[in-house]
C-alpha cells in the first residue's frame, strides 16, 4: 500500500510561490481562486499502516521543517 505524507506551510507563513501561481491563474482569465498555497506530497510504498508512528518521526524530523511547515499522513490501498 501507499503512505502519503502531505507537507504544507503553516497558516500565517508567507508563500511567495503560491502568490505567483495565484496571479498566473488570474492572468489565465479565471477569477475564482483567491489564494494558492504550495505544498509537497511524499508517496511512500509500505507493507501496511503499522509504520504510522515511524512515519510521524520521519515527517517531523526530515520531510517537514516544523518551524514553518506542518504535515499529515494518509494510507491508500
Amino acid at each position, binding site marked *: 500500500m501507499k503512505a502519503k505524507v502531505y507537507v504544507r506551510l503553516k497558516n500565517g507563513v508567507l508563500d511567495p510561490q503560491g502568490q505567483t501561481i495565484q496571479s498566473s491563474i488570474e492572468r489565465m482569465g479565471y477569477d475564482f481562486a483567491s489564494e494558492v498555497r504550495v505544498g509537497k506530497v511524499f508517496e511512500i510504498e509500505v507493507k501496511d499502516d503499522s509504520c504510522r508512528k515511524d512515519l510521524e518521526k520521519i515527517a517531523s524530523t526530515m520531510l517537514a*521543517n516544523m518551524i*514553518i511547515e506542518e504535515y499529515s499522513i494518509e494510507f491508500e490501498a
Partner: protein
Amino acid sequence: MKAGVVVFPGSNCDHDCYHVLKHVIGAETVFLWHKDTDLQGVDLVVFPGGFSYGDYLRCGAIAKFSPIVSEVIKFAENGGHVLGICNGFQVLTESGLLPGALMRNRGLKFKCEYVNLRVDNSDTPYTNMYADGEVIRIPIAHADGNYYIDEEGMKELEENKQIVFRYCDENGTAEDDSNPNGSLGNIAGIINKKGNVLGMMPHPERCAEGVMETRDGYFLFESIAKFIGGCK
C-alpha cells in the same frame, strides 16, 4: 586557531573559505569531509556556501543527517565555534543549532549582489573588530535567504542581542527598501544564545582581500582568529 571547512557534496564556497582562513588569515586549516566523524582537533568549524546534497527536499535539510554534522552539533554544544555562511546558515537552522528557518526569497529570484549590512552586535567572537551600528558591504548569493521565526522566537532574539547583521541602506537604516529577500526584521545573520555559533547569508569570504570590491569580510575572520588566538 585551527580551522576546519566542511565539504558536502555540492559545497562550492569551501575553497574560498579555505583560502581566506589559510592564506589571508594565516590559520592552520583543513577540509572536513561530510562522511568523516573526526574533527581533527579544530577550534573553528565552517559550514561553507553552496548546494549541499543538491538542495534536495529543503536547503540544508539532508546535510543535518550527515556524519560530520552530528559531530559538529556535539562540538557546538561543548562550546566549539561554528560559522555557517549561506548554505552553511541553512544547515545550522535545519540542524537546530540556530533558531528559525530560511525560506524562498520573497521575490522568488536568486539574488547575487553586494548589500549593505548593519552590525547590530559587535560583542561576539565573530564581530569584535567591527563597531556597533557600522555599515559594511558584503555580497549575497542565494535564492533561499528569507529568514523566518515566530513572534516569540523573534522577541527572544531581540532580547538576547542575537541579531548580528541586518540588511540596511548606506546610512544604516534597516527598512523594507533595503531588504533583498523578505527576511523578518531585515535579518541577515544571527548568533546562538551561548555566542559560539554564527549563521549569516552574506559571504564574508568573497570580500576578504584588497583586490575585491570591499575588504569588509576580512574583519569577521580576523575577529574569530584574534578571539581564539594563535594565528600568525
